[in-house]
């Protein structure tokens, strides 16, 4: 049985494996020789060029879009920082009580329409007693 293993009865044409390697490793011709179809001369070079040109504007637009997006994100970040700084730096709003606010309103109202004599006439006597130093 070992004789059968040692003596391979099958043969291949001379140089077959060299040719096979060439055929398998050559990316220029991945199609077998049975291929009866052909293309116009320099077709693949023109195809590559044509496709690149066809898709170039969209790529350029994407680049522009990307640059514009970067610019806007910078502006947005700067605005956010300014807003945060502004919020911390601004004085806290003064809390005024409701009753105090009403008194202030009434006071302002009267001050607008009355002169100092009228105001004095409306005041109580004890309010007029201003100690002199």
């Amino acid at each position: 049985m070992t004789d059968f293993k040692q003596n391979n009865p099958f043969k291949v044409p001379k140089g077959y494996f060299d040719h096979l390697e060439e055929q398998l490793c050559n990316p220029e011709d991945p199609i077998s020789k049975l291929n009866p179809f052909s293309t116009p001369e320099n077709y693949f070079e023109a195809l590559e060029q044509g496709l690149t040109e066809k898709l170039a504007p969209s790529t350029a637009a994407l680049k522009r879009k990307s640059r514009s997006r970067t610019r806007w994100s910078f502006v947005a970040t700067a605005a956010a920082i300014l807003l945060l700084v502004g919020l911390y730096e601004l004085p806290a709003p003064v809390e005024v009580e409701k009753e105090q606010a009403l008194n202030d309103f009434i006071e302002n109202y009267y001050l607008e329409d009355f002169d100092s004599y009228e105001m004095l006439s409306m005041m109580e006597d004890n309010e007029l007693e201003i100690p002199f130093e």
Partner: protein
Amino acid sequence: MKQQSIFVNALRDPLTKEEAFKKLVSEYKKRLYWHIRKLVLDHDDAHDVVQNTFIKIHLNIDTFRENSSLYTWMYRIATNEALNFINSKATKMGLQNCEWIEAKADGLTADSYFDGDQAALKLQKLVARLPEKQRIVFNMKYFDNMTYESISEILDTSIGALKASYHHAVKKIKTELND
């Protein structure tokens, strides 16, 4: 696979997309063209389909999930584009897809980009008469020497079904050639 991921990322990045796409076209233009050409037969039709295929690849690279190889994904797009093209052409002419392909095969004798002898012409006509699935499988297996595993991934069909399709296709062609 890692190298593929780097390349796919380059295709997705707007800043490197253009350069990466040029590389992609340069690398795969012939293989995709010949796959499409075998399906549509005519050079001008193949040219239209290969352009659409690359445009689709360019536009849809973000949807490529990297579950398969990039080549398999592109091959699938090319196959679908070719079949859609045949379908649309046949519909416009009021024909079945197989009738349109048979008419194309009959016209090969007058095609200046067909250099085959009588035997090659006969083979192409017989292949054109096969049902669509068998025709695709026969082209990929017989002419492109693709493995059943690769064809299975591209066509999303089980290996068993592909073997059956190829077996039927070969049997039909052999029978016709012997007649």
